[in-house]
């Protein structure tokens, strides 16, 4: 079966169509959990029947079968008699509204009443089409735990009004979270996050959706130059820029420019602009730091975030010198993550090597990840000589 190209082909198509069909059912008024059950049954039927001949309109076939499964289930459940009345009044299948359906699903899976972890799991399951086992492996928890996380999220959504306008900000935050958490398991979450954000950006006129997509593409473009053959992380200044994915960078810049042209700035557009300026520089020395600093000013104004303020201190250090950078760091609360790392870096630039070494060690102690800890420990060791 694995070697049968037709089957493999069907599998990819089914994974792509499943979430769309789910979106159609939900838009017609089916509750989320029952709709998902119905879509799963329809997919199983497709796996059984398509090898004998795929229907001319696979999506239409799935919608018809899933809707029948849904109505069958509703009728079979006497306790749901009232819902049956409502669903009989549902509109007849209309023309394809694929973009709307995807967005509707994202709004549901990223409903503000869900915790971030539940929203992430449900989004990957219901919109991304990943199996529960795949999501569990990726987040390194047992499958029953992940199954419960998803099932509780669905329960939380039960009875939530489906016609309420969705919260795009929450959707974008969840997608960003998926992108950032990538690379721990079997699935390439960064690629999956980009796939989902493409759908969100295509369906939404909000320039922040495009801004987030641009940001992801610009970061993803550098994924092959981040690690040495030994698995050590390489800072941007030392990366081999010939290994950057120029196509992704061009696409990211293009999407960003269209978003910026709408003149409705947001934090993702500002972050993408900073990433684009780095990606544009032929070498680290040719980086346009004054313009990067301007974008940090925008970012700090937009977000009022101390993390952005700490980042801005680095840019100030590049533009006005490390001492100027240090005086900015001193206005940022010391509890902000990586405060010591920034002070270490600026002290090194200023020639205070002993202080820099001590601060790198302090920063390594507080590092939230293994690669970051190892990197900072190596920085301290470098200054020991």
């Amino acid at each position, binding site marked *: 079966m694995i070697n049968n190209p037709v089957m493999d082909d069907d599998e990819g198509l089914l994974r792509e169509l499943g979430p769309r069909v789910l979106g159609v059912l939900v838009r017609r008024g089916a509750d989320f959990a029952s709709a998902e059950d119905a879509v799963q049954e329809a997919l199983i039927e497709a796996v059984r029947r398509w090898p004998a001949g795929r229907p001319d309109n696979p999506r239409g076939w799935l919608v018809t079968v899933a809707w029948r499964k849904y109505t069958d289930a509703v009728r079979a459940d006497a306790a749901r008699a009232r819902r049956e009345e409502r669903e009989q009044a549902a509109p007849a299948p209309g023309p394809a509204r694929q973009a709307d359906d995807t967005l509707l699903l994202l709004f549901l899976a990223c409903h503000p009443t869900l915790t971030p972890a539940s929203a992430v799991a449900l989004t990957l399951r219901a919109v991304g089409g990943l199996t529960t086992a795949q999501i569990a492996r990726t987040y390194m928890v047992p499958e029953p735990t992940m199954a419960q996380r998803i099932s509780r999220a669905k329960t939380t959504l039960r009875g939530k009004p489906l016609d309420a306008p969705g919260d795009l900000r929450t959707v974008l935050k969840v997608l960003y979270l998926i992108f950032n958490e990538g690379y721990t398991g079997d699935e390439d979450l960064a690629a999956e996050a980009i796939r989902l954000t493409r759908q969100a950006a295509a369906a939404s006129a909000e320039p922040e959706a495009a801004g987030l997509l641009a940001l992801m593409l610009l970061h993803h473009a550098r994924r092959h130059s981040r690690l040495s053959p030994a698995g050590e992380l390489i800072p941007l200044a030392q990366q081999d820029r010939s290994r950057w994915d120029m196509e992704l960078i061009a696409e990211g810049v293009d999407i960003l420019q269209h978003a910026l042209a709408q003149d409705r700035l947001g934090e993702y557009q500002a972050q993408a602009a900073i990433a684009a300026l780095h990606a544009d520089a032929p070498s680290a020395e040719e980086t346009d730091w004054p313009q990067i600093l301007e974008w940090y000013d925008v970012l700090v104004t937009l977000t009022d975030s101390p993390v952005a303020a700490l980042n801005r201190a680095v840019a100030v250090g590049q533009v006005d010198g490390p001492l100027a950078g240090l005086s900015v760091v001193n206005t940022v609360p010391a509890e902000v993550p990586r405060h010591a790392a920034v002070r270490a870096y600026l002290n090194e630039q200023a020639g205070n090597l002993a202080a820099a070494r001590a601060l790198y060690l302090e920063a390594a102690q507080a590092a939230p990840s293994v*690669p970051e800890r190892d990197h900072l420990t190596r920085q301290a060791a470098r200054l020991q000589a």
Partner: protein
Amino acid sequence: MAKYLLLKHYRGGPEKMPDHEASMDQWTEQEISDHFAFMDHVAQVLTETGEFVDSQALAPSGTFVRYDAEGMPPVTEGPFAETKDLIAGWMIVDVDSEQRAHEVAAFLSSAPGRGGRPTQEWIEVRPFLTPGATVTDTLIEAGLLPA
């Protein structure tokens, strides 16, 4: 979401509470059964909340082992039962906040001990370092942090 290791210590850590002073060999059979049933219950509850990762108990005594030289067998010391700090077992949870990790640790520490009273055992809570994330944090752009 972040993972935390909840460590149960036989020995070590802050001063024990009165009900945890008596070691388990002085408990009745029923008290011991109730205690372990509670541990299973905690794992069950945390699976249902989507937070459980793993739980293991450890034998009380262990052996210290180290490398000696090329071609030589490992050097061992022990087994020691009487070290200053001894770990009885652990639970790993994946939770939304440190506060939630503390709640879960307190739940574990409410396990019944002698006379069915909560042991009030101290649980050490240690956050995991993440195995490596694609942080899009802009500090990376300065070459300051790994990208």
